[in-house]
């Protein structure tokens, strides 16, 4: 597998190499109501190889993966295992051919131990579980591939990275030769990603095949032996050779045009303080979710809050937005105290809030774009929708929202367009002009084109003098947008740096709670 010659070719790839494919798919077509999810797609993976499926959301990579593991059946086309045609009528049939998928959302029972989860669904279990024996068997499989897990640990106590490892061990235990990893890095911190990549190499070294599904260009280039790029259900390009792919070229194949995600920072001096947080603490059920947080955000400044999910980010945002009353400490917006006064009072002081959860918190899924624009505004006793319609149309144009008009239901919008509706509402001001914008994971799950737009909108808002608090788990995003970076770990700010001088390793270490290193 020392194919170092780089070839970038459009159209279906025809493997002419000597190594036979462990798994191959030919002329796969899959249609869903109103969508051609896969259109005549060819794909194959050889033993000991990492072959990446790259594409934006909705490009068809998850659909293809689902057919490769037996979750869906193709409408037409053939799948072959070691050259012999197979029909994968269910995930269990896929497994019997040695194909397993590690889903983005883990399918583990939190109350069970690691070993119990791993053997769950095996058909060779006896009626009475011999725990010690099971633990040994699971530990043995885990060790063989350098995947350290404690078989007797309860899954509910494990970190996200550890849970992912359990999923992989489970697939290997079930005899998987081909592993499909669906967006495996989406939930991991940088150190965990590195660890995962080590595991991937350990598995390919023993001849396992990995199908890696991702839309993150940097890691794709790092891990892949080959890359197949999908766009709108079709293969748009194919790149072979580890490290030979060029991110710019991949992005172009993926999106269909050139993309610019360059670093953007405040180009002008920042003004006075818009958000002041003093000694903010929050205790929920006896647990300190936020402890002694103090910081300011100025006019025209973007402050980034970095951290692994679940370290108090959501609570911090909710407290600033007036949804939660802090146990102690204060929040003021534009010089006026907003603590304990509720979300409407906070908005009247100039707050706008884009929560992490777009559909279900920021937007009401069953309501139209127009009704969703009314959500955070003053409404008359008899709602006058006709008078809001022109503004709705204007915002749809201005924010380039792909919709049939103001009556388009929020739940029928793509992730990117839903986020644009949310930003359109929050940036355009409701009760008063927006002074402070709190945004949580604004680009999570969006495709590259939409990420570009959302980042530009945030940058424009900053240039217009709004104070922005960007709370995100995407460290790259914070590093390339924020003027100042604060790291939240277990509810406390453990590290502070400016955007220019931030070091990926230092910030990453602080996110993982390694504060000694950080404090130097």
């Amino acid at each position: 597998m020392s194919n170092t010659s780089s070839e970038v070719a459009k159209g279906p790839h025809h493997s002419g190499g000597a190594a036979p494919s462990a798994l191959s798919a030919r002329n796969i077509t899959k249609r869903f109501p109103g969508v051609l999810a896969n259109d005549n797609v060819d794909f194959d993976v050889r033993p000991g190889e990492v072959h990446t499926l790259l594409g934006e959301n909705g490009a068809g990579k998850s659909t293809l993966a689902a057919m490769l593991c037996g979750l869906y059946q193709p409408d037409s086309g053939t799948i072959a295992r070691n050259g012999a045609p197979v029909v994968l009528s269910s995930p269990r049939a896929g497994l019997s051919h040695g194909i397993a998928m590690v889903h983005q959302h883990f399918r583990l029972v939190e109350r069970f131990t690691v070993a119990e989860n791993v053997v769950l669904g095996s058909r060779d279990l006896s009626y009475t579980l011999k725990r010690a024996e099971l633990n040994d068997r699971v530990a043995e499989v885990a060790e063989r591939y350098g995947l350290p897990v404690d078989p007797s640990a309860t899954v509910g106590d494990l970190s996200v990275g550890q849970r992912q490892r359990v999923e992989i061990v489970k697939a290997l235990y079930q005899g998987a030769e081909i592993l499909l990893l669906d967006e495996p890095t989406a939930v991991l911190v940088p150190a965990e990603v590195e660890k995962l990549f080590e595991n991937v190499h350990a598995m390919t070294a023993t001849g396992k095949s990995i199908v890696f599904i991702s839309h993150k260009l940097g890691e794709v280039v790092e891990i892949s032996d080959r890359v197949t790029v999908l766009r709108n259900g079709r293969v748009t390009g194919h790149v072979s050779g580890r490290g030979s792919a060029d991110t710019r070229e991949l992005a172009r194949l993926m999106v269909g045009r050139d993309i610019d995600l360059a670093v953007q920072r405040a180009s002008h001096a920042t003004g006075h303080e818009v958000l002041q947080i003093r000694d903010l603490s929050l205790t929920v059920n006896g647990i300190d979710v936020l402890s002694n947080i103090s910081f300011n955000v100025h006019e025209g400044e973007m402050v980034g809050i970095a951290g692994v999910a679940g370290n108090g980010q959501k609570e911090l945002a909710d407290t600033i937005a007036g949804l939660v009353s802090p146990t102690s400490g204060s929040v003021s917006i534009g010089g006026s105290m907003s603590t304990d006064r509720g979300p409407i009072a906070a908005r009247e002081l100039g707050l706008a809030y884009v929560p992490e959860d777009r559909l279900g918190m920021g937007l009401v899924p069953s309501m139209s774009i127009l009704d969703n624009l009314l959500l955070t505004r003053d409404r008359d006793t008899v709602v006058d929708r006709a008078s809001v319609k022109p503004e709705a149309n204007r915002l749809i144009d201005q924010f380039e929202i792909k919709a049939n008009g103001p009556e388009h239901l929020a739940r029928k919008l793509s992730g990117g367009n839903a986020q644009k509706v949310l930003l359109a509402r929050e940036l355009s001001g409701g009760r008063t002009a927006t002074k402070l914008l709190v945004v949580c994971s604004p680009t999570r799950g969006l495709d590259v084109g939409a990420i570009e737009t959302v980042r530009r909108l945030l940058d424009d808002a900053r240039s217009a003098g709004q104070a922005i608090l960007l709370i995100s788990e995407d460290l790259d995003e914070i590093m390339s947008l924020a003027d100042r970076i604060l790291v939240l770990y277990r509810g406390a700010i453990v590290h502070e740096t400016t955007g220019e001088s931030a070091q990926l390793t230092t910030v990453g270490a602080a996110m993982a709670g390694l504060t000694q290193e950080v404090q130097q």
Partner: protein
Amino acid sequence: MNLPFRLAFEQRTETPRRLAVMVPLLSVLAAIVAGGIFLFATGYSPFETYSNMLSDGFFSSTGITDTLGLSTVLICTGIAAAFAFQMNLYNIGGEGQLYLGMIGGAWAGLFFGDRLPGFVMIPVVLLVGAACGALWIALPAFVRARLGTSEIVTTLLLTYIGASLVNHFIYRAGSYFRAPNTLFPQGRQVPDSAMLSPLGDTTMYPTFFLVTVLAVFLWWVVRRTEFGYRIQVISDSPRAARYAGISAQRTTVQVMMISGALSGLGGATLIVGTFGRLDPGIVLLGYGYAGIVIAALARNNMAAIIVSGILFAGLRTGGDKLQISTDTPIHIGVMLQGAILLFALGGEAFRRYRVKVVRMQTATAQGAAQ
């Protein structure tokens, strides 16, 4: 079991508009077919029975006015149920709130009977009835809003207490509501000033128009007002409501109280028309429970409840008359009512899922390959 095919349910991304209309219609049709099979199996002619029911319920002059007369209370309990259901508040106790509305209405009629003129009396009876219905749901509403206690359980249990209360007021010697000097205990008739006259020589009262207007008004409230907007936000995503500073607690209490008031109003319409007194027979009629089915069939659409309410009233009047004209049991109407609910709820699956027949040949081919 090795069938050559299996049924697969595929989730629909959206429900086609025609299905929203077709599913309730087909549910009714399916219920009629199922009822027909039952009739045939028990020795009655389905066609004859149904044509009798149809003409007795809808297509005779007394039939249609009896039906519209009965639909008055059913539309009331229907909109009462739907108003709560649309916010995912399952007020199952419309029946009990109806009893209380009747008690309240009868009390108002008896108490103010000789003191107030007729044009004030009727609204007073209706309002007191509605207020009593609202009062009967107040406790469930508050504990649901404050503590999250299941309103299904609390409203249902209060219905039994309501039924006991009706019996208590009728059977207790010397009760205010009891007619004096009758052989069998029965309710005391309210004065004429507290009663409306029927439309001509029918059993239909002007309250029918009141409740249809009310249903259309509530339809407008849900779609066009701030209150309706709030209900929609809370029912769809409670977290979005919190985010926007909309109080789910307050709206929960308001919606449940309105639901209770509507059932109570239904009870009071039986005082100003039809009965004219508190009648212990009410606990056997199940008008409040019928409202649940009527709301489900209309998919909680306030205006559509006028149609489903009339349909149900027709089934009942048709079924009742069947017993008199032929020897078909009265319960055929009630049975159809239950069948319609079952099919309407089952029909929901077709709105949300597409049913596909999957042939199994491929799987057996694969089985052979293994």
